[in-house]
């Protein structure tokens, strides 16, 4: 660069430009400090903004997964309770039926047993019609009010209720009535039919039918009991899976929040240090400018 002539106006122009640059930098740091954000517009850091937007979308998605999981846990929790109380009811029915084999029983006692079996059947029906929110949980995806009619006929469908609890992870949170209480898809009696048959057999007074109560009817009931136990473990497994996914979503939420903050928020100690350095630079520039407006030859002429 050729040596420039230096004149008063070039000096003052340079000094002004320098001070302006200093002030601009200071304003930038102060903006960041006062907004608490280092990304205020896409051009501040295109890749940072891309990350920040991705993280934000992720956080919303994770929040949604958590809500879905909570809802799914509600469904499965309700199913778990229903199945547990069904097992209790089935156990009582079984005890009654086993007791009915006693030859010394009078027909009156058998009738009483039959009535109790009827009431167990009614309780079991109401368990099968359990609702979560306003939906019967064993009715699949159909919009009926009750999963089973009072006669024990299934009104729902075989649809699966799914909750999405993670990227590409959908968990079925319902069991349909036939899976738990029957009637099975291929036909055959439901658990309600089994209980009704047993009650009828007890009331009949016919020795052949009475014998059925402790043999055919009992083994049919045992079949359903095993079925309910199996389904209970299915529910447990699904519950665990959702809980795991939920915990994972919570973990990811805190990790991603941290990353979002790293990308988006101001690093306070760093920004404050920068501000101080910039202030020192600005003061130095001011001091220098004060000296630049120096005496000229004019001061030394008479």
């Amino acid at each position, binding site marked *: 660069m050729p040596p420039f002539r230096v*004149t008063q106006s070039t000096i003052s122009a340079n000094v002004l430009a320098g001070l302006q640059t200093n002030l601009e930098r200071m304003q930038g740091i102060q903006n960041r400090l006062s907004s608490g954000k280092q990304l205020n517009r896409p051009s501040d850091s*295109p890749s940072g*903004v891309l990350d920040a937007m991705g993280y*934000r979308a992720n956080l919303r*998605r994770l929040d*949604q997964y958590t*809500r879905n999981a909570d809802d799914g846990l509600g469904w499965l929790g309700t199913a778990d309770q229903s199945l547990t109380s069904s097992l209790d009811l089935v156990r009582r029915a079984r005890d009654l039926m086993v007791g009915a084999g006693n030859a010394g029983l009078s027909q009156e006692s058998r009738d009483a047993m039959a009535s109790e079996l009827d009431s167990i059947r009614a309780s079991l029906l109401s368990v099968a019609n359990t609702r979560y929110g306003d939906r019967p949980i064993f009715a699949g995806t159909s919009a009926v009010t009750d999963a089973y009619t009072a006669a024990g006929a299934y009104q729902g469908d075989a649809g699966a209720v799914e909750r999405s609890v993670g990227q590409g992870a959908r968990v079925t949170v319902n069991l349909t009535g036939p899976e738990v209480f029957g009637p099975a898809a291929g036909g055959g009696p439901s658990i309600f039919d089994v209980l009704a048959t047993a009650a009828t057999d007890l009331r009949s007074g016919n020795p052949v039918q009475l014998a059925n109560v402790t043999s055919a009817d009992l083994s049919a009931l045992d079949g359903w009991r095993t079925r309910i136990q199996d389904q209970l473990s299915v529910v447990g497994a699904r519950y665990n899976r959702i809980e795991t996914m939920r915990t994972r979503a919570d973990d990811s939420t805190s990790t991603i929040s941290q990353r979002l903050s790293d990308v988006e928020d101001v690093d306070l100690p760093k920004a404050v240090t920068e501000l101080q350095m910039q202030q020192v630079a600005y003061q130095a520039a001011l001091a220098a400018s004060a000296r630049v407006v120096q005496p000229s030859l004019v001061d030394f*002429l008479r």
Partner: protein
Amino acid sequence: MSTFSSLGTALSALYAQQHGMDLTGQNVANANTDGYSRQRVRLEAMGGVAGPQIFTRSMQPGAGVKVVDFQRIRDAFLEQRALTEQSSTTALQAGQTALSRIELSFSEPGPNGLQSQLSEFWGSWDDLANRPGDVGARSQVVERAQTLVQGFNRAAGDLVSLRNSLTDQLRSRVDEINAQAGRIAELNNSIQSSVQAGLSPNELLDQRDQLINQLSNLVGISTRDGAAGTVDVFVGGSALVRGPNTETLGVTTDAQGNATVMWNRLGVRADLAGGGEAGGLQNAINTTIPTYQSRLDALANQLRDAVNTQHQAGDDLVAGQPTDPFFTGSGAAGLAVNPTIVADPNRVAAAAAGAGALDSANALAMAGLGDGVGSPDAVYRALISDLGADAQRVNRQADIQSQIASQVDAARKAQSSVNLDEEMTNMIAYQHAYDAAAKFMTAVDQTLDTLIHMGVVGR
């Protein structure tokens, strides 16, 4: 050599030094005047005999000093360079302003941008999947969709109004260019007359240079010296000012909203490749903004098609009619939620086709549309990232360019601005020369005195 010629020499010296001092005064007076170029008095020694001839030889010193002219000191090449750099700077600054306003209209990253509205829209489908029979959840899907659509409409509207306001700005800049060109032509005229009258037009030249300088901020120009002190100004090779005459520029717009700067008389496009604010604005109006407009439109259409395809694959709660498309309209400005669905949220299709009424497979599939590569969300994020990169690039270019421009400006000023020390030094030199010339005159006077009174000797 005549007896009194020495007095003439002394007088010429007094005049010359006086001019020098006057000019120093003028320079000092204008030390802070914008656009003023320092001036120097050009002196020349006056010779004795005009031409040597055989019989008129005489030993004779010169006949003093004469003022040739007042010279403006400036570097013509640096001036030209400054014009170019200034035009590039203002062009980039215009682009920078446009991009930063585009950035504002997307308001990213933040809770009010389209990204969060997209997320909320997808989230509402998940909520619907949890409660497919709930009218509240259905209405929420519709509400969120309307918010999203408004977000698209608003962004599109912002871009259109930005484009219109830049077009207005371009018009007013073109008016300024015409006015400025008119003033330059007038000055050309005055300069021409004063040059022809043999006067010094230095101050007029300064004024004209400053106008040209200001004009270069508005539009990329080049200049060429014309006859008799005039200067011709060219925009993209065509003359805007030629001597005392000017051409005018105008702005025409077409149906797509493009704005073109035209030569009014010739009816052809003006070449604004040289930059200037007008060049920058024209580029922003015709290139930068339309790029983002079309990308936003494409995104809106992609979203519409993806959502409609998924929606129509499912079943709504209203029996006996095919599922409606969810979005209608085209482009970011035209996008709307299907009014039929707004009127009856039961027409939102949450269930898979043929499944039970409370099935939510379709809603779940819909909620997943926002994930993954190539999803509307990813496309939108790429758009914002590209916008950021564009704006960052132009910001940097503008920073660098304005530094270059200020360096060139400093170099130019260093040539033409007044240095007080130098002026003082000159003043002392002129003052001493004046003193000396006066002394010389006294000496000649005394010599003559001696000569005149010589007669009394021997009387």
